[in-house]
């Protein structure tokens, strides 16, 4: 990829609808402060804040590119303990896994 060109990513309205109607993903209160990522013992840039941004923006491709990271979350809730917006972070990660289990792994 040449300098200054970013990978093509397309918003998937279908994905946005599925997330909204699931009733299981809720990060609307997220202020994007990044505390969760700062305290996460995994020390992975995308976990969990950016994953939630991708989800809210409907960037399904970006999420699926990072499937490994979604399964690298320990569900330890260190992030939740520190989140001042009360986002149910571990539940949201679990939702992303259940989405992948159904839609991609067909389990």
């Amino acid at each position, binding site marked *: 990829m040449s300098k200054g060109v970013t990978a093509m990513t397309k918003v998937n309205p279908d994905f946005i609808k599925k997330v909204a109607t699931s009733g299981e993903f809720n990060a609307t209160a997220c202020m994007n402060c990044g505390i969760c990522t700062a305290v996460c013992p995994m020390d992975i840039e995308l976990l969990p804040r950016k994953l939630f941004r991708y989800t809210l923006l409907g960037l399904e491709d970006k999420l699926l590119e990072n499937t*490994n990271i979604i399964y690298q979350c320990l*569900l*330890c*809730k260190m992030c*939740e303990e520190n989140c001042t917006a009360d986002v149910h972070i571990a539940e949201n990660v679990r939702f992303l*896994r259940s989405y992948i*289990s*159904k839609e991609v792994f067909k389990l």
Partner: protein
Amino acid sequence: MPLPIDDVIGLMIDNLKKRKTVFPIPYRRATGWADGLNIPEGGKTVIYTGSMYQLLPYMIAAVKNMELVEDSFLGKFVFMGRFFNKMFNVSAFVSIPKKADVKRYKQIVYNIAKLLKKAGVEFGYLYRKELYAGTLAYDLGVDDAFRIQAKRVYNLLKENGVSTVITVDPHTTNIMRSVYPTIIDGYDIEVKSYLEVLATSDNLQPLHSVEKEITIHDSCVYARHESIIDEPRQLLKRAGYTIKEPKDNKALTHCCGGPIESIFPKMSHTIGKNRIQQFKDITNGGAVATMCPICMASLKKASGDGLEIEDISSFLVKAFCD
């Protein structure tokens, strides 16, 4: 290259659907801990192990094999294991546990039951009928399989007239107490961790003096999901131990790394080592008490021989039982 997530998860979920557990083990290995304790079968109040401690020796053996293939081309062939597993129990061939591990984890459940008896708690056990609670399926987001297992467990409890369960590990406690009610209408089972039960008992008084410092490792699930923080401290104190607290403790405890071990063994090990360093910062070769079979296995592995890492029940039994 990491292991193929879909095949690793698929193998465990196929087991859950077909064999009612993520990791089928001979039933005597699940119930043998109760030998000699004369625990009645069934009853309104039962100890519920969910086989977590009993499964751990098998998991340890399986993860060892996975680590060997994690970065090799063999990792790609996990799908073959999944294919054959549909016909016979592959797990029984690929993970032969160490005898010492089987003995160690069995002894922990035995000790917990002994402590409950000493505290004067009346309880039964479902023996062979007891089922795995479905924890891993829930954590991995395989919701359909998890729901089926949750209903199986609930039906089992109702059919046997159980109204209260005493759990022995944090994961089963959390699933049965906080998750089942969200997916089963009218769920009415009272769920208590044995640590909560023991902490409220006046009958439990030390019989032996145990002057020793113990560093406490809170499980994320007990501390952050279930707010079980004071009970283990009260019990260790009552037993006569001096408690040492690592840098990250109580509601801000540091994960042991274990939850991702079945898919990312090496990353899991790094997290475990980070936690071990926090213990080493405050204790030199001292004792560390864990409260979860997964924490114990991960931390033992990460520490090498440097620390005495044991389940909290092993320390309690030394003070409270004959």
